[in-house]
């Protein structure tokens, strides 16, 4: 008990300190991309000791950070993730690690969470705890804040994509759609996903106009500008030859 309280204070303090440091933790989705995840030792539902390195070498990982006593986003987040995963493209190419960032959570707590979600026998899912949560959450840019009045962590729904080499390739913050999950799965599998700038009134001469509702690209005015130099040259040639009649013929 004492150990858990101490760790809670430590992690909350760590987050507070980190937020006051010169190089603050990057909490947005862009932060920590292409950095390696900290290789934390893990205790999993089978009570076996393992590590991130071992797990990610088998398959790329999706890491969900939660705590079992959460009265907020953790449950809807995991339920949505479970549902979306069934519909996401390439969903079998990844494994999911659900890791508690709350030092009070034991592996028994995590097992009962897995049971509640009906995932205790699903080999794609691993529920785990670690004794090295602080360096791990720092390595992914996750910063929960302890709210002592509510006795809850104030935190985001946070899903991290880790490829087989241990690099963070993409993060999703918030409860997201199956489409976003597919993009995350592609990224951990090192599959390129095209992105398009949405049309705006200030972009007049796009080569192609992307329609976000249909997902289709149609030729735009910009293409004319690529042909323009050749057209102007031909016109100039005609003009020059017209005004410079040849002296021999």
């Amino acid at each position: 008990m004492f150990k858990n309280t101490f760790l809670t204070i430590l992690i909350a303090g760590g987050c507070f300190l980190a937020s006051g440091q010169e190089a603050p933790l990057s909490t947005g989705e862009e932060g920590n991309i292409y950095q390696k995840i900290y290789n934390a030792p893990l205790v999993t539902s089978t009570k076996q000791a393992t590590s991130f390195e071992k797990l990610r070498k088998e398959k790329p990982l999706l890491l969900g950070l939660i705590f079992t006593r959460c009265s907020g986003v953790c449950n809807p987040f995991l339920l949505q993730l479970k549902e979306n995963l069934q519909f996401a493209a390439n969903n079998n190419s990844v494994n999911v690690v659900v890791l508690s960032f709350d030092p009070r959570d034991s592996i028994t707590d995590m097992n009962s969470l897995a049971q509640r979600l009906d995932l205790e026998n699903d080999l794609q899912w691993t529920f785990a705890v670690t004794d090295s949560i602080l360096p791990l959450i720092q390595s992914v840019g996750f910063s929960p804040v302890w709210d002592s009045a509510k006795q809850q962590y104030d935190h985001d729904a946070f899903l991290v994509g880790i490829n087989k080499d241990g690099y963070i390739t993409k993060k999703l913050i918030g409860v997201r759609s199956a489409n976003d999950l597919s993009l995350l799965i592609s990224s951990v599998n090192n599959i390129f996903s095209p992105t398009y700038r949405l049309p705006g009134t200030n972009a007049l001469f796009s080569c192609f106009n992307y329609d976000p509702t249909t997902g289709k690209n149609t030729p735009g005015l910009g293409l004319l500008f690529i042909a323009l130099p050749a057209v102007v040259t031909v016109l100039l040639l005609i003009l020059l030859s017209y005004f410079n009649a040849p002296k021999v013929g």
Partner: protein
Amino acid sequence: MESIKSKKITAVWIITILTLFVVSIVLGILMRLNQGGVIEQTPVAFYVNMTTHGLTMIGIWFVAGMMAVNFLLQRYVKTSHTVNILALVFTVVGVLMLWTSTFIGKFHAGWTFLYPLPFKIMWAKWATPVFYLALVVLVVGWLIWCLSLIAQILKKYSISQTFAWQHFKKNPKVETPPFILISMITLVGITTCLIAAVVLVALTAAEYFSKGAFVNDALLMKNLTYFFGHTIANEMLYLGLAVIYELFSEISGRPKWKTTWYVAIAWNFTLVFILTAFFHHLYMDFVQPEGLQIVGQLASYFASLPAAGVTVFSIFIAVYRTKINWSLPNLLFFIGTAGWVIGGLGAVIDATISNNVVLHNTLWVPAHFHTYNAMGNVLFSLGFFYWFATLDTEKIYSGKGTKLILSLLLIGGIGFLLAFYIAGADSIPRRYSNYPPELAAGIPLATMGAAFATIYLIGILIFFFNISKGCLKILSSPSS
């Protein structure tokens, strides 16, 4: 015929070009020394050197081809002396403005200044507009020069004759000299890519002054950038080839080359392929339609093949089992053609989509373009410089001097290029100011490149010293 006025301005061009060449080679050697860890420059200093080196090199070897074509064109048509002087002034002013933006303003977006990089100010705020103004000065000066030469050709030859279309049929009544055909094809290509530069600068200025009300499309800007950059870098080689067609047989004591049906067809095709080959710079841009990627690959193959095939065939026929008066200019032409073909093969390997996935943005790219520049086009121009400087005199230096210069250029050039090729094949990326431990293989190769480039530089300095005598003599001769 060439007047003394035209000889004087040509001599000024040569001295200006070689001076700028020496400075640019020094910048190149500094870059390789930095990559090799022999000297330590800040990344900003490296990229300032890289931007200045790239743009100055492209600029000077473009004008080298133009001024040689201008000089030789006077054998067929009258050219404008005023426009020639104007081009020289615009070039010098443009280069000085460019160097101000890079050396003083620290502008360092690379010679391709790819959008939106110039807008991400990491240098003095004024450096971006000065850089673009420099570009405007250069492009306007060159466009006027180009159009003036085309207009002069069209005064004597009809449009179809300049493109040698009458040679598609048997026994044409009028012969288009190969020099006119190649010059015209190249000048038209240059005009097109300079107009692409005008469109590019206009769109950039529109965004710059609109304060956010107008933004450009990155794909359009990339297409236009390479339409200009790739094409001008390519066309300048063809200016060199025009000079070879005019001078190689003459210097070698062989009959003048004639335009045949296959020469005419090859060069007409070349015009189209050169103007569409730039699409190969956009292989990694997934939004570009696949059709254009295929056009890029095919045009890259075909752009070099007709002209290269015909030129190599013509040179081979000219030298095979015949007594040739070998001298420095035709040896430079001959070796330059070999460099052009070898560099061209390296380029075609890279322009093949399946290979490009591996070689994209590695040192293989500078490897191939330095081959057909430093050991191709530069040698074409040096051949012309030497021929020009010795026009009115008996040879300035003996066979010994010739051998020394050629040996230094060959040993230095080949070693310098090999360092690029080996590193490129080993996936060492281009445009790295320093190589991290993962790319340590690039470090000794960079030092090796610097050492061999220094040998090449010594060859250039000896050559410069020798021909400057001839150029100074022309400059000091009476004007009438």
